[in-house]
């Protein structure tokens, strides 16, 4: 095993690009968890719907670069719409229930959405391709690095910046943050908390949709994607600090990078690395790395 600087560097970049997708998905989950106090197990299903919608949009617009960019733009909106309907019809009646009930409810929703996806898109594997300029790989320090992953490395921070601007610079974002800390007080100030929750839920779903659309060109789009991501997202949200989107960022970076280095250092047992990192973090900081809003 050659452990030269070049392969370490590529591996770091590969790990970081995976972290970006994990971040986008788990930030949405963490945001919903923080503001609405709903541990949304169906978040993975929304991510899967994002990927499948991206596939449909991509196919509809002729499977080219235009198709891809439109998919990236529109698929998250489709997911946001699904989220909006789910929130207004189902979730908004349940906020006062205990967490266990909410957990069961979102679990049921995950199963239902999974079957809906099967009914709408069928069980076949689907796939979409990155647009012209992002196909193939570039050479970084002599190792091949997929261009699409470079693109992910750009998109991830962009999403983070927009999230920061939203939560710190807009009135809506500030209200969301306030609602996460003390929802009674926000209500007492005469703000319609119900609509704040709806907005927060839709934003979380929108992020899941972006994650699904972004991951689509790198994997096969299939049933079961929801289960794959939801466990990782939950772990990330937990180690980052429940409800803290910056915690989700830190958690994603830890998860993605330890996985990438695990693969390089000890490939037979690479699966263990990110989970070992999670256990270590939880042993040292049981409430997560950053401040939990719970």
């Amino acid at each position, binding site marked *: 095993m050659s452990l030269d600087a070049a392969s370490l560097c590529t591996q770091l970049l590969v790990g970081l690009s995976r972290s970006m997708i994990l971040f986008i998905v788990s930030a949405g989950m963490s945001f919903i968890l923080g503001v609405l106090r709903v541990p949304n197990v169906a978040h993975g299903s929304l991510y899967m719907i994002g990927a499948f919608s991206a596939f449909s949009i991509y196919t509809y617009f002729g499977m080219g670069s235009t198709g891809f960019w439109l998919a990236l733009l529109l698929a998250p909106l489709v997911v946001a719409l699904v989220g909006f309907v789910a929130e207004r019809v189902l979730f908004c009646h349940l906020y006062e229930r205990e967490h266990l009930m909410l957990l069961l409810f979102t679990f049921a929703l995950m199963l239902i959405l999974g079957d809906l996806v099967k009914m709408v898109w069928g069980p076949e594997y689907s796939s979409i391709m990155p647009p012209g300029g992002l196909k193939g790989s570039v050479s970084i320090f002599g190792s091949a690095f997929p261009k699409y*992953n470079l693109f992910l490395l750009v998109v991830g921070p962009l999403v983070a910046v927009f999230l920061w601007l939203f939560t710190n610079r807009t009135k809506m974002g500030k209200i969301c943050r306030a609602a996460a800390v003390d929802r009674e007080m926000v209500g007492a100030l005469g703000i319609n908390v119900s609509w704040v929750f709806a907005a927060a839920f839709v934003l979380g779903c929108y992020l899941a949709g972006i994650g699904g659309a972004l991951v689509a060109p790198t994997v096969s789009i*299939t049933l079961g994607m929801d289960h794959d991501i939801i466990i990782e997202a939950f772990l990330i949200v937990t180690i980052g600090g429940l409800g803290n989107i910056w915690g989700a960022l830190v958690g994603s970076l830890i998860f993605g990078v330890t996985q990438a280095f695990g693969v390089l250092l000890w*490939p037979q047992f*690479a699966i263990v690395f990110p989970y070992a990192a999670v256990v270590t973090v939880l042993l040292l900081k049981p409430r997560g790395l950053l401040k939990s809003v719970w």
Partner: protein
Amino acid sequence: MRYRGRGFLLVFSVLIGSLLALAPVAWAGGKVIKVGIIDCYSGPPAVYAKDALNGFKLALKEINKKGVLGRKIVFTTRDTKFKVDIGLSMAKELIMREKVDLLVGTISSSVALAVSDLARKEKVPFFVWMAKSERITGELGHRYVFCTGENTAMAGKAIAVGLSKKPYVKYWIAGDDYEYGHAIGRAAWRNLKKFKPEVKKVGESWWKVGEPDLIPYLTAIMSAKPDAVIFCTGGRSMTNVLKAIKATGMAKKVAICIHTATDHASLKPLGPEAPEGVMGTMDYHFYYPDTPENRAFVEAFRAAYGEPPGFPAFHGWNTAHFIAAAYRKAGEVDTEKFIDAIEGLKIMSPVGEIEMRACDHQVVEPMFLGVTKKSPKYNFLISSDIVTLPGPEIMPSCEEIMALRARAKK
């Protein structure tokens, strides 16, 4: 999970109830040969199960025109949902209530092994048409189980035969961290070592089944600079692997060999964007061999179902013809005579003559080693420069199988 289980049980019992209500109607009138099919008709594996069933149905249409010993072959299906307990209870139900003469199935190796054990106890012949574990007809084989598709031992040996003729020395083995992946990897490496003792394994990597991001694995492998990589993967992971190979440009730097990489079910979703130059082994292609038998099969299949047959359809078609030919040879509908008749039986399949080997009940069929390549005829990649590896060359010998079984008994 308890809540899910309860709801599931309810649906499950309703399903069984409705199936029981329908079944007798289907089999009314005249003497028939009953085949019970258990397979996974829900979730991602349903694509393959449907294809296999279509191949089987197509063959039956033809067989039932003449009939077998004055009877028709009829079948009923049960969904295993890829679960051992459900598969097993479905198989029991088919044997006890429906009194099927034969069982056929399934894509899951663990379901196949469990049902195989039941078949042995109940003395009902069981044809495995898709599950690829070599243990089914290997160490756990017996008189009542048959495999009509290739298994991991054959796939691994085919890869080894193909690669031993190439100049590569440093190998890396990578794949899905489950029985199928490891079985192919073991068989390929064991045989490659035998055919070409100078080969060296520089490393292995195994990812969890369904791992969405394989790029870190591929970049790590490339930094170790092996001459060739054997990927042991299948199903949805195959598409992920092929995409990651394309994204990293790996096929241009390292030789890659994957069993079923040349399957059109994996290549078609990727369209023209699948990586070129990946070696793959496969026991069936609808476009190869270009013989009258294969053309006739493909045309009939297309006319009936609107798409070309995949390897499961090929296995399904062969299974039906093995069953019909064995009954005709046996001369009466009797399980023991049927088994005596099928041992060593040869039938004409779309790819030529294939044989049910007497010693272990494993089908002897050729394997096609090819390289993925763009084709002007299709909008997806196909296997090209195909080398046919004859069946006997890629099978473990009868002595090896018997030694395995003797060891398993101890």
